[in-house]
């Protein structure tokens, strides 16, 4: 029998059996596909667990030799030199210095940009400004690091001749520039989510545009704006390359922005570029510092998420 006659016989079978078999095969295939897709989604959960597990395990090894209190509250950070000391506060202080500098530049400017974009700008200006901000947000951090080192630092030197080549001021300015587009676009989203009826109500009782913006729009969007601020600052804490290039490698407990400092992230890079042998206590420090970094940014992200959730509940 050739194949064409086989098909003929099959087609003469009662219709139901054919459809039924087909459906069973289909159901089976559907289940397989669903399981594969579920597995894809589970990878993200696995990633989180892996991060937590690895950091906890390796940090556990570190804390066998160094007490947690010495690590968290010690004021000397010299893990690579004798006499070794493992107080993380100088690194935290360097990070705080960068974040404060970056925040005081990016938060007000980002907020004002967002106000202009959502409340004042015409559609044309908006469609010009928004893409430019997106380009600014898409520039790799290594480029910002280069910019800080070869442009901002020399510029600062002409105003403050005493400034060191590697300094916190230049790094924090450039980190501020980096997070500026993020602040602007998240705040812009928050402002645009405020219903127009609120604005029109305020205009109807005779408020000027300034009064509407500062008295109605900003208070209504406050939790959205706060969420944007927290998220941007958390990004600044995790920033690595710009601070590695521009802020230096001297862990120091200082609030002077004109001297060389070191952040948590820059320290991790310094160790992994150096020749510290893996497995030693000095090498293990990078896991402890990463764990601290992870916990801080995770807390900030959760706070930001909560704030945004509250904001959405009100308006969406």
């Amino acid at each position, binding site marked *: 029998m050739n194949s064409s006659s086989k098909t003929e016989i099959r087609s003469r079978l009662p219709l139901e059996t054919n459809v039924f078999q087909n459906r069973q095969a*289909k159901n089976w295939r*559907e289940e397989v*596909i669903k399981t594969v*897709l*579920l597995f*894809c*989604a589970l*990878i*993200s959960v696995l*990633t*989180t667990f*892996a*991060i937590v597990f*690895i*950091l906890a395990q390796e940090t556990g090894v570190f804390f066998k030799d160094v007490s947690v209190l010495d690590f968290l509250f010690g004021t000397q950070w010299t893990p690579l030199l004798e006499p070794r000391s493992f107080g993380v506060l100088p690194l935290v202080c360097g990070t705080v210095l960068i974040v404060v500098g970056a925040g005081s530049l990016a938060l007000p400017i980002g907020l*004002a*940009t967002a106000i*202009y*974009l959502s409340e*004042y700008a015409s559609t044309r200006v908006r469609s010009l*400004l928004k893409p*430019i*901000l997106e*380009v*600014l947000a*898409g*520039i*790799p951090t*290594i*480029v910002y*690091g*280069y*910019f800080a080192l*070869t*442009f901002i630092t020399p510029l600062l030197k002409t105003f403050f001749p005493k400034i060191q080549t590697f300094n916190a001021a230049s790094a924090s300015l450039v980190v501020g*520039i980096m997070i*500026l587009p993020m602040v602007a676009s998240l705040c812009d989203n928050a402002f645009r989510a405020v219903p127009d009826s609120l604005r029109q109500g305020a205009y109807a009782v005779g*408020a*000027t*545009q*300034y*009064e509407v913006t*500062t008295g109605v729009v900003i208070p209504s969007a406050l939790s959205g704006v706060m969420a944007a601020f927290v998220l941007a600052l958390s990004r600044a804490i*995790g920033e*690595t*390359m710009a601070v*590695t*290039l521009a802020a230096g490698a001297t862990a120091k407990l200082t609030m002077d922005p004109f001297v060389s400092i070191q952040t948590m*992230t820059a320290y*991790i*890079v310094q160790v*992994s*570029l150096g020749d510290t042998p893996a497995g030693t206590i000095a090498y293990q420090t*990078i896991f402890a510092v*990463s764990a601290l970094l*992870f916990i801080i*940014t*995770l807390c900030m*992200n959760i706070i930001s*998420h909560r704030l945004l959730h509250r904001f959405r509940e009100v308006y969406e």
Partner: protein
Amino acid sequence: MISQNLTHRHRVAILFHGFCFMVSWTGVVILGILLFHVTGEGLHWLDLQFLNDFPSRFPEKAGIKSALFGTVWLISLTALISIPLGVGAAIYLEEYAPKNAFTRFIDLNISNLAGVPSIVYGMLGLVIFVRWFNFDRSVLAGSMTMSLLILPIIIIASRESLRGVPNTIRQAAFALGATRWQTIYSHVLPASLPGILTGFILALSRSIGETAPLIMIGALTYVAFVPEGPMDEFAALPIQIFNWASRPQQEFHELAAAGILVLLIVLLLMNSVAVFIRHRLEKKNQ
């Protein structure tokens, strides 16, 4: 509470408008200065010899061939790994997942992962891919780390795009007897493709510029060969730029600027491709 003096109130309103207008151009001005500065420093180093030579101790002989090839390898592998996983996860969460506590947990988890600093992903890659899987400092280890890093971005963008497909399309397909997967494959996915592709290219451009995770897993800065397989060691553009920028000599700073120009051109090309694809597909769908 509000001042009675109307002229004063109007003056404040105008001043505030002017202030916001001026400030909102800060980003544009900075972008201009940055591009001008980098071009001024690096343009005269940018020639065929620069693209065709390996790194060298002598600035006039140095080039970015190994870094460029390393980056191409890295990005291609990253794309291969991350696109199926990311889109798959997005399809599951949008089209299949029941609305329960577990789905909400995955959701929260993804948005938290998007905020984890890239250097922490580097630590993850170092321990899992380099040590446990024994991939060493290979392109494969690098691109797997990168994939984990950009997965949240791809998932979030793809989900948004899938959500934008009107429900009537799904219902029409179901009504004709299509199974869920047939519906997704033949109708939902094509309709959401422009958004998915755009998000994907944006995620890839992020991974091109990422430096910290590659330093963690030990990408090299001084490579005089081109990787020939996924298990080879590699250099990458941002690492090479970092290496040059962290040297004290002015010539190397200019080389770094030239490297940055190449990086920015690659990014620009990728983004134009994204815009082009989105434009084409949107036209076709209409």
